């Protein structure tokens, strides 16, 4: 079965600093999603990447997909306290019992110090 590994597990940065979170898949990525979650709450959709080399940006958050490396990275520029939370990567799971559901990494907990 496919697995997603996120690194780092947690991150503390000073406000204004840049940071990168990585998500590596054990198998070919067919669709990679990034979500943000506040502790104990629902998932907020950030971006979805489908093609190798694809890069998307939303405000100060940029995500890239490296298909050959089976990896995606999420980069935050000039971090703010509002960026704090748990970042989860998810991938479409074509393997296993059925298609059309997401498997997730364990998440990266981001804290931003004012």
């Amino acid at each position, binding site marked *: 079965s496919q697995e997603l590994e996120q690194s780092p597990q947690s991150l503390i940065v000073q406000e204004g600093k840049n940071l990168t979170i990585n998500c590596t898949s054990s198998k070919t990525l067919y669709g990679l999603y990034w979500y943000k979650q506040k502790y104990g*709450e*629902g998932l*907020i959709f950030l971006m979805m990447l489908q093609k190798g080399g694809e890069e998307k940006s939303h405000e100060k958050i940029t995500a890239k997909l490296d298909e050959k490396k089976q990896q995606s990275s999420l980069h935050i520029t000039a971090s703010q306290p509002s960026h704090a939370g748990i970042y989860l990567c998810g991938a479409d799971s074509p393997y*296993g019992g*059925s298609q059309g559901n997401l498997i997730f*990494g*364990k*998440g990266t907990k981001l804290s931003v110090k004012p």
Partner: protein
Amino acid sequence: EAGVAQSPRYKIIEKRQSVAFWCNPISGHATLYWYQQILGQGPKLLIQFQNNGVVDDSQLPKDRFSAERLKGVDSTLKIQPAKLEDSAVYLCASSLVPGNYGYTFGSGTRLTVV
């Protein structure tokens, strides 16, 4: 467009008691998912419905968990009897078409079993 509605937001029960969670997906979304997220981990799929039929319930602990989506719209997830290890956030999500861009998650139900 209204989002995915879940209730209750929080629930505290004693072990061996029963509990039920409710989810109303986005109107017109045929696919509905229930995920379990234990603290510090990524969400794990429990069950996937396509209209009122089960597509994947391979990871649902069927001795204590049950779920239904009788009219192909809203859904109920039940745990009976609950164990301490069931403490988690239960997330409901829906999508128009399985495996397609557009998974929308609800705010989740945080369950604490004491």
